[in-house]
């Protein structure tokens, strides 16, 4: 038995019928050209599948597509705005925060969540904020630096905005 769902992803509405057991991550990845969200495990440990669901980071393998009915999802493909990379994307690039890139979309959204709740974290807070996301390549060091740089850029932007 399939049930109808409609989920807004990166500003576009996707309506379809899904099996109730279908994971949100599979729903997303089965759409054309939305394979940036990764699956790295089957026990909700790795965080590679992290996306924003109504602005909050979730591991999309822990959520059924039907649970996301009516929600707004942002995936890595939707993070850059008007052709401009998000400060987190830019910072991961600047600070060599990725190697194979497989963990990166999830890392970026976990970092996004961290900065949303704690805009000016210490390195230690960054490390704690990312403990639910695994990376086998970088040893995390440059990921921490990337998040630090993104925080600085975003804070500077906010201040600019405040003054302007």
């Amino acid at each position: 038995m399939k049930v109808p769902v409609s989920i807004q992803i990166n500003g576009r509405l996707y309506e379809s019928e899904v099996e109730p057991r279908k994971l949100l991550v599979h729903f997303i990845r089965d759409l054309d050209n939305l394979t940036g969200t990764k699956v790295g495990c089957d026990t909700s440990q790795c965080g590679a599948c992290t996306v924003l669901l109504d602005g909050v980071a979730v591991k999309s393998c822990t959520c059924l597509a039907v649970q996301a009915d009516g929600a707004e999802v942002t995936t890595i493909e939707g993070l850059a705005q008007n052709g401009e990379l998000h400060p987190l994307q830019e910072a991961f690039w600047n600070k060599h925060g990725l190697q194979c890139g497989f963990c990166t979309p999830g890392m970026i959204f976990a970092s996004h969540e961290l900065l949303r709740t704690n805009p000016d974290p210490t390195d230690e807070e960054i490390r704690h904020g990312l403990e639910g996301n695994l990376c086998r390549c970088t040893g995390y060091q440059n990921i921490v630096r990337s998040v630090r740089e993104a925080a600085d850029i975003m804070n500077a932007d906010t201040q600019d905005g405040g003054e302007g």
Partner: protein
Amino acid sequence: MSSKIFGSGIRRREDPRLVTGGAAYTDDITLPGMVYAAMLRSPHAHARIDDVDVSAAAAAEGVLAVYPGADTEDALQPVPTAWLLPDSDLQVAPYPAIAKDTVRYVGDIVAVVVAESRYQAYDALDLIAVDYDPLPAVTHPQQATEPDAPQLHEGISGNQALHWTVAGGDIDAAFADAEVVVKERIVQQRLIPNAMETRAAVAQYRQASGELTFWNTTQNPHIARFICSAVTGIPEDRLRVIAPEVGGGFGSKIAVYPADFVTIFCSMRLGRPVKWTETRSENYQATTHGRDHVQEVELAATKDGKITGLRCTVWAGLGAYLSTAAPGIPTILHGLMLSGVYDIPAVKEDVFGAYTNATPVEAYRGAGRPEATFMLERLVDKLANELEMDPAEVRRRNLIPRFEDGHDVITGLTYDSGDYPAALDKLLDHAGYDDLRRQQAEARNEGRYLGIGLSTYVEICGLGPSQVAGAIGFQGGLWESAIIRFHPSGKVHVFIGASPHGQGEETTFAQIVASEVGVSPEDVRVFHGDTDNTPMGWGTYGSRTTAVGGAALALTARKIKEKAKIVAAHLLEAAVEDIDYEDGNFFVKGSPDRGKTIQDIALMANVSWDMPEGVESGLEASTFYDPPNFTFPFGAHLAVVEVHPQTGQVKLERYIAVDDCGPQINPVIVAGQVHGGVVQGIGQALWEEAVYDDSGQLVTGTMLDYAMPRADRLPEIEVLSTVTPSPHHPIGVKGIGEAGTIASTVTVYNAVLDALQPLGVDSVAMPLTPERVWRAIQESGGD
């Protein structure tokens, strides 16, 4: 530009596609009409298969086919190993892609289902009824060789896959005359590589033409093509292997696996594109593991700390079958590095490779060298303890002095260049070693247990001369190739045979070309991973891509430059000898402002309106580079830990790495490799272990049970370097991919044991979990 671009930490060319979700990994590929395969894997470590009933599964919704071993038996040749190690009595057991009569490890494939969707394929797995007759199992490498152990393969007695020996000098005399002997039994526990992308394959077989395109998570697409051809019978010229974006490998994507051949088989039978993607739990069972040594080691020395001999016996678990490169890992890549950075006059090692009821073992980051470095560096610390000498001092007394052009060691290798004392000095200096020792003494007075751990290392990289490959039984070459093609506008395409998968060679290779011929790295695109549009190459492993592929590329760029000079001389109406070159500009000596740029020359060579007589059109060159020797990167690492005796908790306070990989093309990328490698090695020391129970069940079968390094448990790693170029390499580079892992496990281990020394603990099995450390303290009765 050229003078600055080599050695500059420019941002990676790879990253824009990776940070935007624009990169396509194997599982991201969808083809029209594609169907999905799922593997039924054995839940038993060892069992006879009495019956496989696929009827219910075959009738399930969406299922196109179910194939047990009887269907693939004739269609697929046995899975080969590619390292037929000579002088080792190597016994290669038949390795069927799908097991038909017997399963030999949890994860052995018993049948495959192909269905319209992945969910349907997995549903149908549950409907396959298999009658197993369980047999006793053995997973421990040493126990497997004992007389009453369960036997895995008919005709292979004692489960012995190989017995290999390396010896040099008079080892018996060394021990007979030794003033001090220290011994240790070390278990290099089994590890699970855990590349974040699991393995996957997409096979598209066209029945009309007999052609196969095969997308695969591989570190070596050209080897994969060769082996897929041998197993499936599809001629190599009709077989195209593509390694698209690959999400890490660490050795686990070297092998060509049963599931790969089975996926191809399904596409051939059904005439549909077939995708198979491993789940993580499946990855834990079926993708190769690493390490798994039991080592008995002893070291002979004089009273003043001079090492005179090293003798060891190693039992290396190889798993149920021999994976692609398996026989060479605990032998060639391990035993030949026994003497490390020290002048040791006598060594001997016996390696027994054992079949066990466990996942096949392959190269895993460092592959044999971390296991060798660990033995030696652990025993050097034990020697220091025994002699009550400082471990740094013992090392100093034994280091090979600086050499620039070759040093023969007792195992028969010739190291290329090294300055081990300089690396150690830099490390101790940066760490403030004497100060650290003082702090440690003070802490002990306060009842706190600080530990300082050291390791020096040298590794063998840049594999390697092909002649040597042949002599040691590697069933392939070990050269690399590169093509550089200039387009009329001066933009450049580079095609390489190697297959980077996270290491950033699209960037560093562009830097090599840029620095050699003066184009902007932005103008260089590097293509790799597709056997149809890249020249042959032997793959990315053993820290060889930059060391060997980079050499091929540098030499190719120099050919381009030579040709460009000839064209420039013609255009400038001068003799070739009178042409000077600087930063992409070719000019008559003394007149740089009236030169021809490399772009001018590329345009002329491509339109070919006015070329020198006898010079071909186009600006393109290629090189097949076979290195004259291996490269030998080296370094020295230090860790500071604090151990809490009440809980057994180990806190890693500091980690310092000094590595020498020769000149660094891109120091940011080099540091990234060091970070990742160091953390992987720390994982082995402190957290990671693949555990099998007595019946051969993989107890650490998911990411919930296998402890991976996490961001919050690590200190900032302090990365330093020295630079000792390889004398035989066109740009002097040596390789850095594995260095961190080779040094860090024993560095951290030594630090923890140093902390525990006053408590009377001198050995704890890895990983050094709080429980184990706590128990060791209790048993020693020291606190």
